């Protein structure tokens, strides 16, 4: 018994425990209400649904740790999906070229965001909100609001494939999480990102090319938004102009729930992953538990706040 208490206490000391605890509690509660909750197809649906917003959240994690923020991610994801599918369908580009172009558009949007906010000094909130509008406008200019359909068969196959019972999008996302987490924790580059977000002046004095680091995070986020948009397009089998609408708040919410500070310098990719998982578990769990659809909306809000509250509690108990 004492050993158990001790191991609980030790778990509680892990930085990500604050978010893990509500996650486990939610999963257990939903499972006991409806034992099919942790069934295979349900779990795989949860994981698959995370992939798209999740990829962007990884980029946003880096970006927010470096001190930036990007509200245009959803809009850019939509633009890139449409650009890629439009090039392939209307312009007859081959698949790899179309995808590369889509990713390039995402990276370019990130670059513009970065230059505007870091070099020119326009608050990131406004620079990227501007980009949100610009990307959405361009998206609809390209496709006139009409879904681009059909997309090449190869992509359709790719989007429908179920490797390991999951999806390519999820596997790519999972690989990204591992890689991005390692990079952030272990590499010089990751350290530069933390330092830059912690205090730009201090980082600059240390000879860290802060401008480049910060802009790179924007580019990285833009490219990941593009990837998410294109992967969703493959899965839906159609270039939907609505792809990405409203993702910005979802992304930021997951990242913040996962422990990233809005002021930069703090957070981990694993935390973000847990934040994403929590949000998705809650969303699916409430349906499985048979909660009324409007109460679900209420519950999502409440659980979000409670989860962050638990994390706060953990950080406070550690100090005393």
């Amino acid at each position, binding site marked *: 018994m004492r050993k158990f208490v001790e191991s609980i206490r030790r778990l509680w000391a892990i930085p990500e425990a604050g978010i893990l605890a509500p996650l486990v509690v939610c999963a257990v509660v939903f499972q006991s209400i409806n034992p099919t909750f942790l069934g295979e*197809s349900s779990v795989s649906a949860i994981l698959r*649904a995370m992939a798209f917003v999740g990829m962007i959240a990884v980029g946003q994690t880096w970006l927010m740790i470096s001190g930036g923020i990007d509200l245009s991610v959803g809009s850019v994801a939509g633009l890139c999906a449409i650009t890629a599918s439009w090039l392939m369908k209307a312009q007859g580009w081959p698949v790899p070229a179309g995808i590369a172009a889509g990713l390039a558009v995402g990276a370019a949007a990130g670059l513009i965001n970065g230059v505007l906010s870091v070099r020119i000094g326009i608050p990131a909130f406004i620079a990227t909100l501007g980009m949100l509008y610009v990307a959405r406008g361009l998206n609809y200019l390209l496709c006139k609001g*009409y*879904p681009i359909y059909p997309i090449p068969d190869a992509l359709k196959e790719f989007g429908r494939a179920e490797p390991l019972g999951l999806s390519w999008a999820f596997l790519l996302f999972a690989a990204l999480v591992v890689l991005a987490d390692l990079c952030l924790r272990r590499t010089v580059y990751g350290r530069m990102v933390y330092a830059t977000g912690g205090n730009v002046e201090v980082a600059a004095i240390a000879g860290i090319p802060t401008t480049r680091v910060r802009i790179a995070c924007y580019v990285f986020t833009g490219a990941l938004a593009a990837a998410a948009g294109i992967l969703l397009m493959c899965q839906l089998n159609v270039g939907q102009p609505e792809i990405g*609408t409203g993702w910005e708040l979802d992304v930021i919410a997951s990242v913040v729930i996962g422990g990233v500070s809005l002021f930069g310098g703090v957070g981990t990719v694993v935390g973000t992953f847990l934040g994403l998982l929590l949000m998705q578990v809650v969303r*699916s769990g409430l349906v*499985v538990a048979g909660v009324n659809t*409007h109460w679900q909306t209420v519950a999502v809000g409440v659980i979000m706040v409670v989860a962050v509250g638990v994390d706060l509690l953990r950080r406070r108990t550690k100090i005393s």
Partner: protein
Amino acid sequence: FLLMAVAACGPRSTGTSNPATTKKKFYWVQGLKGHPVHQLTQIAFLEGCREFGYDGEIIGADNDDLSSTIALAEQALAKGDAAGMAVWTGNPGWNPFIEKAARTGLPIVLPHFPSPEGSVPGASGIISCDPAAYAAEAAKEIGKAIGGKGAVAVTQGSFNSTENLVAVTFAKTLGDLYPDVKVLEPQEETFDAPKAIARAVSILQANPDVVAALSTTGNGATTWSGAQRETGKSLVVVSMDYTRVNLDLVKDGSIHAVIAQPLWEESFGAAELLDRIVRGESIPWWTKLTAPFLTREKTGPYYALIDKVEAAIAR
């Protein structure tokens, strides 16, 4: 009926002399302007305007926030060149705007959204199908397809009067006809595809006896075909809107049918009604159209219509 619609695009009653007024513009006021279904209606309306000898103009914001579309419409009317206006709304929030515009003598027609006579002061009439009718038809068709047993899931894109009416009528009709069928409470589908699919999967998870699904929104086809793929279940799915994507899903058997709201007819027809009012004719309050239930065999002509719209958009 569809043939009629396609035919309506061809040359028709040419006898109409130009209206006596110098105002020759019909406005089409519609929020979420870029929505593909809305675009289809816009093209139909513009075609109608051309047909009857008017300039058509589309007014609307990209979002579905009515105050921004109203602001835009007020500015357009301020130019003073309007001969008529069609307002795409079923929302009483528009009433003050409509009433005010009507006070200047502007003929106003409301396409698509049914509402009882007198509920929209100033409007001359509405033109639409009856959602209750297609909801009842969907109930009959689904009940038949599932052999009167099992549970049926219902998802709504959002909760608004029309979608609520469809969901309620559907549940009632199905319950009356097939007492053994359980109709689940409607769930919000949301407009984000991954979230919608995950939610549909969860519904299936929680209710293993679901054998059919009705979505009261056009994205339902993608949502429920995705959910079927992920769970490996096979359902009788009925969704809205005859987009090419949805027609293909019907054709390849992923979903059972889509309900074809007479979008083209009502939009084209709105221009016709306006023209009739301008020429001094009187029109009935509700010009009622039907909404066909498109199973695999019936999709053919709609591809033709889509081709036509796509060609128009490409222009």
